[in-house]
């Protein structure tokens, strides 16, 4: 079902799945382009969670997806404020589940239990976007460096890979890391050498040059989240 929450004078849409009563899981997609590449995966995961009897809400963040707000108005702190509004209006929210940069926002409601798939620091997302910008500049015959671009970005904002980012967003994103509080279930892929509490089969679809979907991965995510929520 498509729902909405009111934030900053606008209606922001969200997808609501599962039983109507009781606490909900708040699902946070990755940020920026990565969100578009896994939209299908996230929606299928929410549907699969509903089949496990789990209620979820997946909000549009201001400036993202169908939001009426321009992205240049957004920042990490604004997104967290939006999540608080969303939880107040459509909650109660009992748990968070995020992929990648979504983990940068999952401290918005304090120390709720949180499930994270391959969380990433904000600086890494920023670095990839800066590199895309530099590659475009190179093709246009403009010499640019990440230091010079960041200096401009911190002072007056910048457009990177089609994203208009405000100085506030740049500062917050550059230093953002997944919050350490609360009970975290850290999940990674089977062939990822980094530590994890759980492993699922799948592939990092958020990296793909061409968007793809993996129905088995959506099911595996939902099964892991459901088992974790039931303790």
């Amino acid at each position: 079902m498509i729902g909405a929450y009111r934030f900053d004078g606008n209606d922001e849409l969200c997808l609501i799945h599962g039983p109507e009563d009781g606490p909900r899981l708040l699902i946070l997609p990755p940020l920026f382009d990565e969100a578009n590449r896994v939209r299908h995966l996230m929606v299928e995961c929410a549907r699969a969670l509903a089949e496990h009897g789990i209620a979820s809400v997946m909000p549009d963040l201001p400036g993202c997806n169908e939001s009426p707000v321009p992205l240049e108005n957004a920042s990490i702190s604004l997104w967290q404020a939006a999540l608080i509004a969303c939880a107040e209006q459509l909650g109660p929210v009992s748990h968070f589940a995020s992929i990648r940069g979504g983990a940068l926002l999952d401290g918005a409601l304090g120390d709720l239990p949180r499930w994270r798939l391959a969380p990433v620091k904000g600086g890494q997302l920023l670095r990839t976007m800066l590199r895309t910008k530099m590659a475009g500049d190179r093709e246009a015959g403009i010499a640019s460096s990440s230091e010079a671009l960041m200096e401009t970005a911190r002072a007056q904002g910048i457009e990177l890979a089609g994203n208009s980012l405000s100085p506030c967003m740049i500062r917050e994103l550059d230093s953002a890391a997944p919050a350490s509080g609360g009970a975290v279930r850290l999940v990674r892929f089977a062939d990822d050498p980094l530590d994890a509490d759980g492993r699922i089969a799948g592939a990092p679809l958020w990296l793909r040059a061409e968007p793809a979907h993996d129905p088995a991965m959506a099911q595996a995510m939902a099964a892991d989240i459901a088992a974790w929520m039931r303790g």
Partner: protein
Amino acid sequence: MSEIETSGHSDAIETVVRQVLRDILGLSEGQVAGFDRDTELFGALPELDSMAVAGLLTEMEDRLDILIEDDEVDGELFENFGNLVDFARAKASA
């Protein structure tokens, strides 16, 4: 470091580079296993555009725990698989 350890280390890095290419380009395990030193990358793989290259560099940094400077990235780096693996090895052992 003994010769055996050196080659073992190198193989691990080559594996990571293969996995990053697999993940970014959506190739199968079999396809990337078939890559050899002369396999052409930029220009030969249509999915490898400048956005994919940006993601590839950041993933390599993350998975190999290295830092790639702006001026180290040029066309030659992505000319073929051998160049990319040599670069990753040099960075990882630095």
